């Protein structure tokens, strides 16, 4: 079995175009992996939504729909967890500078809820800036919990 760069066995390793169709594809792949991992339907849909939000960030804000840039999706599964990584080739963002969407003054803002949704629907979430460019987002869903 192949392993990802962190040593976990991979079930998906694919490069996607910077399009909204790729967002749908990323969600489909995660839903399929979640089902095979025995995650219940409700949790799987929530995880799918987290991955959708992350893929949107990669396509829209990271790669800015640039078809010369790809979105790298990997899904790795071990007995304890499902680990999803999405890497774009954009300029990155600073988690610390994102406004809190639950703050009273931000409640009626049009955007800014994506990262919050990712955090809400995953067990672990981290962001790593890559050099010379790109962002790697890692999302973890624990199994059997």
């Amino acid at each position, binding site marked *: 079995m192949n392993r990802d760069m962190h040593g976990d066995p991979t079930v998906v390793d694919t490069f996607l175009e910077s399009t*909204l169709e790729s*967002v749908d594809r990323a969600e489909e792949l995660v839903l399929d992996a979640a089902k095979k991992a025995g995650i219940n339907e409700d949790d799987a849909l929530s995880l799918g939504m987290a991955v959708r939000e992350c893929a*949107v960030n990669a396509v829209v804000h990271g790669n800015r729909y640039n078809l010369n840039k790809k979105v790298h999706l990997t899904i790795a599964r071990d007995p304890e967890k499902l680990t999803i990584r999405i890497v774009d080739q954009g300029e990155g963002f600073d988690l610390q500078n994102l406004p809190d*969407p639950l703050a009273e003054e931000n*409640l*009626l803002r*049009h955007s800014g*809820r994506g990262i*919050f*949704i990712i955090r809400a629907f995953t067990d672990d979430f981290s962001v790593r800036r890559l050099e010379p460019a790109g962002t790697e987002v890692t999302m973890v869903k624990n199994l059997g919990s």
Partner: protein
Amino acid sequence: MSIKLSTRQVGDVTVVDVAGRITLGEGSSTMRDTLRDMVAKGQKKILLNLGEVSYIDSSGIGELVSGFTTVTNQGGQLKLLGLTKRVKDLLQITKLYTVFDVHDDEAHAIRSF
């Protein structure tokens, strides 16, 4: 199915029946255009029936919020009807459930305007 919207008039309330997915792209833009058209036509009592909405993402939530603020700023009211469990849960965790006037029963919702 991406999204399907149809409107009907019940007294002075415009009911928008929404079905499908409200996600970034066609879903959110169709929702945005429909609400803008209604506001431009002077419709000020709008009931969004989301009973057949299977999925909504942060972009879709953004359109609901923008629609709400646009209608409210024009002196109108935008209310929600028939939320599925997933949509309701999402509005609750984003603290928007109490921002909107949400109803389960259409007749009751119509009378509330």
